């Protein structure tokens, strides 16, 4: 058994930022455990640009953004265990992992969970049909293409118009494939407008909204898919079914925070975020265990991941240095138009400004967000538009929090 002050599970953007923040806050016995050969996480395969506009004022590619933090980690004496997979985290903050050297057991004073996400699969969608080769999650195809240099297919259909699907539409086209269509179940795309323009319009790739893949065909290798428009209940409309020949189907249909370790540790989860329930320092309901990054909530911008991870790193460092803080927790709740609010509980004795993060339930035009506790308004904010794919941030001043007695709700009002 080894001892370390802070153990961080995952060396992606969240893990790296948390490690650096904890180290700079004075707790230098920080280790990162990562299962890959190098830290950087999912950014290593996101070779496109657009990362760091808010945080660093530049539009870096994924690997470049990862490298900014990797250099920070390496310049401090933060120990990294590479090719190390964590198999358990206990409520007593024992971390069990394995790598080529065998089994590692670490007793930590604080653990930061930063495992990121995995992708929803064809099995989870239950798409009928045969099970030929050629059906990939978009991220898997991205790894094969961008890191290992495989051409995963020549004629491609993509299901899901979130950013990963759109980015892969462009990648496949640039690498010589023909992308026949991007199908999107919802009546609107979840991706950024710039991606619709630069990944689809630039290459004349059609986007079919309110459309899904309802059957997969092919023996051995994929031969084609049947697509269909869907009704308001999102069920396929029989008369609109049509067949598209293709050899590759990419699924970009949702990210799932990778919380196997979290659940096994008995940490209470939020069913809407699919992440742990946390406070404003990203501490879960088990003291000393923190969560940040995509494992806590699926993010759109890595800039917010870094910021959130720094809060977690700071929180963990403060716990190690000063012990548990005096706390009185008030829960937060999503109101009209809001799907979820993070953190799910706020320590009103902390005497600090608190940032709330939320997503709306559907696309809205002009809105006003209101944060209330009972009848007391804690914050309001106007926005010209709000969309589920764009996380919102609202700030509450510390002195207003002192007066809070009832749950804090965040809701919106549509402005005409």
């Amino acid at each position: 058994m080894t001892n370390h002050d802070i153990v961080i599970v995952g060396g992606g953007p969240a893990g790296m930022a948390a490690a650096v923040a904890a180290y700079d806050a004075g707790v230098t016995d920080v280790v990162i455990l990562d299962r890959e050969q190098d830290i950087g996480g999912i950014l290593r395969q996101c070779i496109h640009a657009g990362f760091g506009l808010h945080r660093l004022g530049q539009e870096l590619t994924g690997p470049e953004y990862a490298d900014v933090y990797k250099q920070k980690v390496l310049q401090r004496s933060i120990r990294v265990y590479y090719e190390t997979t964590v198999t358990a985290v206990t409520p007593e903050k024992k971390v069990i992992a394995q790598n080529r050297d065998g089994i590692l057991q670490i007793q930590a004073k604080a653990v930061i969970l930063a495992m990121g996400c995995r992708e929803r699969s064809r099995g989870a969608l239950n798409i009928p049909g045969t099970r030929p080769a050629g059906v990939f999650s978009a991220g898997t195809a991205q790894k094969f293409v961008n890191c290992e240099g495989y051409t995963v297919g020549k004629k491609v259909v993509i299901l899901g118009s979130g950013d990963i699907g759109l980015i892969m539409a462009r990648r496949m086209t640039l690498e010589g494939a023909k992308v026949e269509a991007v199908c999107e179940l919802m009546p609107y795309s979840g991706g950024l407008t710039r991606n619709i323009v630069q990944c689809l319009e630039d290459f004349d790739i059609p986007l079919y909204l309110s459309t899904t893949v309802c059957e997969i065909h092919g023996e051995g290798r994929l031969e084609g898919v049947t697509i269909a428009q869907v009704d308001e209940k999102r069920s396929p409309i029989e008369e609109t079914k049509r067949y598209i020949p293709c050899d590759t189907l990419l699924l970009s249909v949702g990210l799932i925070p990778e919380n196997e370790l979290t659940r096994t540790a008995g940490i209470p989860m939020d069913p809407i975020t699919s992440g742990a329930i946390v406070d404003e320092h990203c501490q879960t309901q088990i003291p000393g265990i923190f969560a940040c990054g995509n494992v806590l909530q699926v993010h759109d911008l890595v800039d917010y991941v870094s910021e959130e991870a720094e809060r977690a790193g700071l929180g963990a460092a403060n716990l190690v240095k000063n012990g548990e803080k005096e706390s009185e927790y008030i829960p937060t709740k999503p109101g009209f138009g809001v799907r979820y609010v993070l953190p799910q509980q706020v320590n009103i004795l902390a005497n600090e400004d608190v940032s709330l993060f939320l997503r709306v339930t559907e696309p809205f035009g002009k809105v006003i967000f209101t944060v209330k506790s009972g009848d007391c308004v804690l914050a309001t904010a106007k926005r010209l538009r709000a969309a589920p794919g764009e996380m919102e941030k609202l700030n509450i001043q510390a002195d207003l929090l002192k007066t809070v007695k009832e749950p804090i709700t965040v809701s919106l009002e549509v402005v005409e």
Partner: protein
Amino acid sequence: MKRNITCIVCPRGCTVTADMQGEIITVTGNACKRGEKHAIAEILHPVRSLTSIVRVSNRRDTMVSVKSAAPIPKEKMFDIMKRIHAASVEAPVKIGDVILADVFGTEIIATKEVR
């Protein structure tokens, strides 16, 4: 000549129409000046940032991610992709190493380190 463009300068994504009559371009539908500039650039000299991958010849199953140091003319994208596909590089590679020089006024540079 009229073109409809979805502006990408900010998340609003205004649908902007650029109407080019001879030398004069009239822009409508934009909510701000940046959108007007963007539409004019798109109709006259559309540019794009290009990112791709190049094979690392002395490492198994390894690619190095690359980008154009500056935006390239949109119509030259596939020409440049041909050059990128034909290229390879030997490790070690550092971020910023020039993989292809002299590409329509800019260069293709590495965005990842390969040891």
